[in-house]
């Protein structure tokens, strides 16, 4: 019996990881939980929440599968289950109380999961929990202001509130969700947290937990109908409040992209790229039109799939080699071909190249920006999305191409099956969504748009993405590219002549010399260093936001010191004073005859 317990435990864990799927498929109607007084918790499945539940349903089992490998780690399993519960509560909640409860469960369980990593440092853990608690308290403050304005916690349009209250709710809730999404300068916890978390848990952090911030941001149009335009009017063809939001997103994307290029550690690079990708989402949400929000939703989906794929794949590589820096890997293409293809598909999705769905998402956002006439934002987005090619290239060159740069990289083998299955599933999903962008629009994006009171984008056929500005056909694109590839390969083989593989990896055109094994031929670490010579990038990379945060720390300490000055060394005095006040006030009231 005892031998079967680990197996049973794992099966149970995997079964629990399927609960989001189950919730998504079976939840109908509303479930009311009476709380106190007139308050009750309402749980229902709105189309917007259903989209994020879909992400959870896709991601949870795919991460749980490799997590279930090896000896069962009961606390990790329990915390993961708690995390899933928290996220489901958050998504199903029809009022802010449920949302807040779910948010707190998610924050604490993810924190406890994070510090189970052997790499977690005090700084990383503290940063993670401080930022996330700040997010939770901002949410709390926002929902209290919301309650004071409406007298209800239901998530509904904020119509009767004064301008000050509306702005207060907008700023407080907006900040709470922006911390979770990780815009600059509120991003410090992301590179530290994603870097130090257990390798597989990073996939959850980047793929699923960060999306809860996007969910929150998508609630804002529900609170402020007419796509935020009610807040501060319109600028060109879009809402002014959204214009500010969009620039925050665009600057975040640019800075985070250049930071990503300069990282030496794979997971840190992926963390910065997550910040950048969610910056695009924020830009698109700022536009608020149906095209742009459609693009944001699609981008959220693609980013979830891509980041799950990349983090799981690199978790496999770290598992097999123990190395996580670009400098220490190299030439894994022959030994880990599946991982190579996974990362190849991943970076094509990340870079937004056709034919994968990242392009469809970018296309919608671009067209949305042109439609809103926000062309400078378009240029900013283009800058970060082409600069992203460079870090994407590092992601594939560093580990897979070039020369093996450590003994572990020289004799690594493919990751175990439980890592490969999620990789293959995610690759398949990405390719399918790329071929059928119209299907993604019709089935996944349009219900959410309708729920947000936006016009659905619609699709003439599964393969076709259509907008008023024109569209493209994913099936034809894939067919043309595939046939061209096959025909060119066939012609190459049919032509006379032979291919010969170089005798040794050192058989290179090397300026007349013959390089030897002890020559450093791998270009993984240095790549991108020369970018600093470009003034703008040099300036961005020379500055960090730590200065702002250090200043904030100093101010907080100074305030605390000021308060501490009031506080005497001997607590007895204070306690005595408190007792005296507490005793005297009722006495005075009694003496007054209770007519107050």
């Amino acid at each position, binding site marked *: 019996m005892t031998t079967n317990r680990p197996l049973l435990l794992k099966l149970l864990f995997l079964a629990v990881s399927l609960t989001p799927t189950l919730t998504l498929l079976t939840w109908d109607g509303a479930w009311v939980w009476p709380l106190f007084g007139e308050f009750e918790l309402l749980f229902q499945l709105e189309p917007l929440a259903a989209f994020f539940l879909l992400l959870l349903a896709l991601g949870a089992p795919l991460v749980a599968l490799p997590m279930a490998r090896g000896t069962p780690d009961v606390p990790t399993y329990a915390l993961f289950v708690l995390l899933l519960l928290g996220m489901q509560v958050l998504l199903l909640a029809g009022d802010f109380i449920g949302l807040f409860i779910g948010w707190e469960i998610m924050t604490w369980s993810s924190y406890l999961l994070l510090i189970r990593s052997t790499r977690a440092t005090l700084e990383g853990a503290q940063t993670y929990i401080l930022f996330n608690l700040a997010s939770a308290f901002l949410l709390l403050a926002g929902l209290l202001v919301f309650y004071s304005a409406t007298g209800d916690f239901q998530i509904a349009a904020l119509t009767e509130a004064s301008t000050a209250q509306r702005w207060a709710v907008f700023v407080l809730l907006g900040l709470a969700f922006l911390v979770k999404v990780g815009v600059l300068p509120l991003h410090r916890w992301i590179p530290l947290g994603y870097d130090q978390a257990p390798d597989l848990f990073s996939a959850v952090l980047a793929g699923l937990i960060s999306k809860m911030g996007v969910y929150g941001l998508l609630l804002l149009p529900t609170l402020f109908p007419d796509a935020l335009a009610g807040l501060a009017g319109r600028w060109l063809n879009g809402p002014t409040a959204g214009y500010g939001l969009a620039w925050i997103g665009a600057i975040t994307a640019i800075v985070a992209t250049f930071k990503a290029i300069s990282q030496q550690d794979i997971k840190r690079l992926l963390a910065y790229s997550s910040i950048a990708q969610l910056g695009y989402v924020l830009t698109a949400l700022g536009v608020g039109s149906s095209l742009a929000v459609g693009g944001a939703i699609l981008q959220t989906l693609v980013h979830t799939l891509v980041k799950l794929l990349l983090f799981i794949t690199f978790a496999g590589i770290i598992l097999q080699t123990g190395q996580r820096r670009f400098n220490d890997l190299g030439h894994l293409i022959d030994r880990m071909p599946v991982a190579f293809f996974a990362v190849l598909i991943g970076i094509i999705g990340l870079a937004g190249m056709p034919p994968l769905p990242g392009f469809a998402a970018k296309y919608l956002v671009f067209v949305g920006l042109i439609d809103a006439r926000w062309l*400078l934002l378009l240029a900013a987005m283009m800058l970060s999305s082409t600069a992203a090619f460079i870090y994407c290239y590092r992601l594939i*060159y560093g580990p897979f191409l070039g020369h093996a740069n450590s003994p572990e990289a020289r004799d690594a083998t493919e990751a175990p099956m439980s890592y490969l299955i999620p990789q293959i599933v995610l690759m398949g999903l990405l390719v399918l969504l790329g071929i059928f962008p119209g299907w993604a629009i019709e089935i996944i994006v349009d219900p959410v748009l309708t729920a947000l009171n936006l016009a659905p984008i619609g699709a003439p056929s599964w393969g076709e993405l259509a907008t008023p500005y024109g569209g493209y056909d994913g099936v034809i694109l894939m067919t043309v590219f595939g046939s061209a590839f096959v025909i060119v390969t066939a012609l190459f083989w049919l032509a006379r002549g032979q291919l010969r593989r170089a005798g040794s990896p050192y058989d290179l*055109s090397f300026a007349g010399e013959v390089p030897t094994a002890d020559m450093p031929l791998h270009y993984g670490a240095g790549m991108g260093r020369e970018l600093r010579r470009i003034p703008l990038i040099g300036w961005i990379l020379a500055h960090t936001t730590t200065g702002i945060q250090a200043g904030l720390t100093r101010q907080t300490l100074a305030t605390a010191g000021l308060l501490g000055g009031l506080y005497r060394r001997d607590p007895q005095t204070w306690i005595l004073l408190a007792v005296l006040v507490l005793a005297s006030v009722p006495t005075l009231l009694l003496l007054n005859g209770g007519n107050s």
Partner: protein
Amino acid sequence: MLHILLDSLAMIALCYVMGFLFRGFYRQFNARLQRRWGPSIWQNFYDNLKFLLKSETLIHGPMFFFGPIIIAAGAITTVLFIPFLKDSIWLQGVSAHGNLILIIYLLVVGPLGNALAVGSSGNPFGVMGVTRGLTRLMGLEVPFFLGLALVMLQHETASVQAIMAAQDSIAHWNLITNPLAFAVILLPFIASQNGSPFDVVGAPVEVYAGPRVEFGGRLLGVLMTQNMMMTVAKLVLMVDLFLGGASNIFELIAKAFALFLLTTAISATFPRLKTEQTVDFFWTVPLGVAVLGVILNVWLI
């Protein structure tokens, strides 16, 4: 179906023939400017055939082989998504199913396929060249795309065919109606053609480094073929967008050649910039003009 196949073949063939003739002209034009005789105008065709018929090709692993194939497939796809003529059922390819933004992204498939192959070769100097190329791409895309966005905004569509159809007479050419967009795009366009002064050093020139350093034999032939085709495809795209498109092949060749002559003359005049100088230049001068264009077109009207 047969129509599309024939049409596609015709487009690819036209691109190839125009490609080696234009490139041959370029070599002779440059030679005459430098008071040399220069090679024959057919020289690029001979060179290409020689490469494609080499009996032996050295490769460094599977990705090294598939990289050039990906680039060539990307080039063919790009060509087929660009409409060559207006008001015609010929030389359209599958352009009805694509749009300008898609074409811009397809243009990037080449550099990325190249990056994979070069990385696979294990030559650090090759990878250095790739990084330079990607850096330049980052520099040029921003003003290039902003210029195109001005055109897309002007016509409220991303469809190349619709933009071409809207320019029905010389007075309606985008070159005339939107000269600022053309001015913004011209220099990044030269860079995307790898023309001086924004070129990235190719393989065995004076510096023994660059993206092509490891390629030889038939793979180099494939790379050269796609390069010539892409030169023409990009020229045709510019003709479609700014010079009112073309109604027949001769008009197309004439307009493309005029544009080619302009860019060649600019290239022949200025010496090469360093990559970081190129990027800095693109982010100041063309981008500055583009921002001016945005302010004029969007904010003031």
